């Protein structure tokens, strides 16, 4: 059931960020940034990150369960898909930070 509730945090964070983007677009950049500095919003974001990571890990495990890969006589296990996808998640996150934020 926890897995289902991760969708609540995914949806609400998306809605908050859409509102922030609309404030940016209407020229109210200071209001948008003040919204993200609100302690309640920060606390929600910490929870949202935890639930989103839970969503990601269970999703990766599910991929390995639903679509195991056959290599010769052996078939991949769900935990192997989990590990590969966690590594991929770290690489993608680092690439996003390097390409879109630090460069």
């Amino acid at each position, binding site marked *: 059931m926890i897995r*289902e*509730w991760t*969708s*609540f*945090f*995914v*949806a*609400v*964070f*998306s*809605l908050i*960020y*859409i509102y*922030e*983007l*609309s404030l*940016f*677009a*209407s020229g109210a*950049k200071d209001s*948008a*940034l003040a919204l*993200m*500095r609100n302690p309640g*919003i*920060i606390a*929600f*974001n*910490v929870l*949202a*990150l935890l639930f*989103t*990571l839970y*969503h*990601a890990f269970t*999703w*990766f495990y599910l991929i390995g369960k639903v679509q195991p890969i056959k290599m010769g006589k052996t078939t991949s296990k769900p935990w192997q898909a989990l590990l590969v*996808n966690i590594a*991929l*998640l770290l690489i*993608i*996150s680092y690439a*996003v*930070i390097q*390409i*879109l*934020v*630090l*460069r």
Partner: protein
Amino acid sequence: MPKVARLHAILWGVFSLGGFIAAFLLPVSIYLVGIAYPLGLWPMAGGDPTSAILNHHHIGTLFLFVTVAGSLYHGIFRFQSTLTELGLAPAKRALEAIGYMIIIVGILVVAYSLLLLNPGVLSLP
């Protein structure tokens, strides 16, 4: 395949794609926008992440659109079906209607906002 079944398959396909987006792109977005920026953690010392991402024009705009729209679709789609599993099954139609309305309005708002912030996004590179 009947039309309704085909539409159903497409909606679940988009939901699955949104699941990948929420799994791979949303955690870093939440960290940058919602935690690193307000708390001044690495790599957000000073500037805000949304402006930094939008400074990369097309790729930054595309990243924001795909991440926010995909996550919104996935989150709302799953949440409304969770509510029906929690005993709100009689209100399934109404929940679906509200859910799709939020998804459509949300995607239109994010697309319009990004278009205003980067008007050149529709022009060819």
